[in-house]
């Protein structure tokens, strides 16, 4: 009876509200974003930096020249949002790669080797975890100066402690398994065991969480750009379009509305994708 109740509960939990729709929506949005980012030069109707005194702060509309309107310099908003997709995706993907690349090896090492290595790595991680992601990224990007590369580095480093923690706990669980003991008994070196046995067995969980962190990275990028600490203008990023549009919210609300919508859809897409992947690949993480 108990198992039946549990089974029903979990299946409903995973399927009814989930179904295929969220993952389909997530995948569609992500594919769309990738296409838009890659094809930006073809898809954008105008040069995103081209100014036009004739079309300053024109409203959106299907009949006009500019589908989503223009900003205070007469730049086409649709083109800027299309080009902004590149920035967001680049920052989202590359900064998660940076965080993954720095955090996972350190976490696996800490979990597998234990002792002083573990203490040193984990104490440093605890220290970095005291900073919320945006605050840490803010601190680093302030120190380095605003640019695309610095922003990626800042967000990547800010995400690192999260990957360290996860990899550490996964390594701790994995290393107790019999096959690790067997590998050790066969004379496998620590490096070999970590690379050939522990890492492959933790990768699915790590990838799921990485997808969710892409959403965090995109949101953090938008936040930094909004605060004027991200990609420098005139390079369009959704955050700085929104920030620039702030002073015109009374008469030209389209500037903030469309750029914010783009941020929300991108974050939503990766959240949906991450959630769906988590349910499929790693039911243990469900609901966390």
């Amino acid at each position, binding site marked *: 009876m*108990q198992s039946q*109740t*549990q089974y029903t*509960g979990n299946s*409903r*939990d995973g399927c*009814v*509200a989930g179904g295929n729709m969220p993952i389909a929506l997530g995948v569609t949005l992500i594919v769309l974003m990738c296409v838009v980012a890659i094809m930006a030069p073809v898809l954008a109707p105008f040069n995103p930096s081209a100014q036009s005194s004739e079309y300053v702060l024109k409203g959106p509309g299907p009949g006009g020249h500019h589908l989503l309107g223009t900003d205070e310099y007469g730049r086409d908003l649709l083109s800027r949002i299309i080009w902004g997709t590149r920035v967001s995706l680049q920052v989202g993907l590359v900064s998660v790669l940076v965080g993954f690349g720095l955090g996972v090896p350190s976490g696996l090492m800490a979990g597998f080797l234990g002792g002083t290595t573990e203490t040193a790595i984990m*104490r*440093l991680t*605890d*220290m*970095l975890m*005291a*900073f*919320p*992601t*945006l*605050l840490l990224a*803010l*601190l*680093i990007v*302030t*120190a*380095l*100066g605003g640019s695309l590369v610095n922003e990626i580095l800042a967000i990547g480093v800010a995400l690192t402690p999260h990957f360290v923690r996860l990899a550490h706990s996964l390594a701790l669980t994995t290393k107790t398994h019999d096959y690790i003991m067997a590998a050790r008994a066969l004379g496998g070196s620590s490096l070999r065991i970590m690379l050939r046995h522990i890492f492959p067995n933790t990768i699915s969980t790590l990838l799921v969480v990485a997808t969710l962190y892409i*959403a965090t990275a995109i*949101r953090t990028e*938008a*936040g930094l750009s*909004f*605060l*004027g*600490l991200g990609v420098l203008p005139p390079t369009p990023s959704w955050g700085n379009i*929104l920030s620039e549009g*702030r002073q015109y*919210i*009374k008469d030209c*609300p389209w500037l*903030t*509305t469309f750029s*914010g*919508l783009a*941020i*929300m*859809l991108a*974050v*939503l897409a990766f*959240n*949906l994708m991450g*959630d769906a992947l988590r349910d499929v690949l790693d039911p243990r993480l*469900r*609901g*966390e």
Partner: protein
Amino acid sequence: MQQWRAVGDERLLQYVVRRLFVTIPMLLGTMSLVFFAMHVLPGDPCMAMLGDQATGQALNDCTHQLGLDRPLLVQYGDYLWQSLHFNFGYSLLNRYPVTTYILQMLPYTLVLVLASTVVAIGIGLPTGMLSAVQRRNPLIDYTARVIALLGLSMPVFWFGILLLIVFSLHWDLFPLIGGGDLSTVVEMIGSGEVFVYPGDFLAAVFDVLHHLALPALALGFTLAATVSRVARSTMLEVLNQDYIRTARAKGLRERAIVYKHALRNVMIPLLTIIGLFVALAMTGTVLTETVFTRPGLGKMLVDAIEARDYPLAQGAITVFTMIIVTVNLIVDVLYAAFDPRVAYK
């Protein structure tokens, strides 16, 4: 029995001391990180203050006056020592003591965090629980999960702007900027004038709440997603427990089971996310206060970074991390007090 309790108390005390010993190096580490990050800044605060046209002599004088020409390690030692005394120096721009500045701004941020917590729990707890209890009703479960996902995906600064467009600009119901007369409220409470002029006090409180409503809603809604998700998964877990089955077997109504038995047990795991929640809320205030042009620590931090005002930015980030570290410490200690197994580990 008495002896058992004494042993338990001793363990708890040991745990608290151990936890404190972990917290101190952590605070020291975060403060060092803040200091060194701020001091490898490419910008020059004197240049920021005096402008591009400043002469070399003026820049040198300014650097000397601010103590920025001292060796980095001397500045570092000084910063740590002064921070221990809650003295974060003087703002470079207006020579105002940073601590006074922070103390003025802190109430605005704390009020915002508190109000958005109320909003987050008010939205997150019912939606999360409803979604779990009604998981067989796709419409309710789906709606609740979509609300949670939206909250998770919607940047607070965008939601804030949408609220401003609709409620401040279009309907003119709420103020566009500012934080209200919080200092008057605090002063009146401090001096006891609240009893002498209750009318003025209520007017000031109303003014504060009027300014607080939209920022708290914006930040609270984005935080509600976290509460909702944890509430949902915990509720699902709780509903599968034996005592719920026993309650059902006793013939209790579903409502009584949910409110009397499940709700209390959902609240405890929710406490564990307080640390995470406070961290998210404090970060959220940076963006929320900027969007609503509301005074507070977050806005102060952003302004200080823009102006390259080291001591002010340093002080703000230090206080931010101090709050987060302290909250985590309190949560851990409370947890050990409630659940003795934690202290024994």
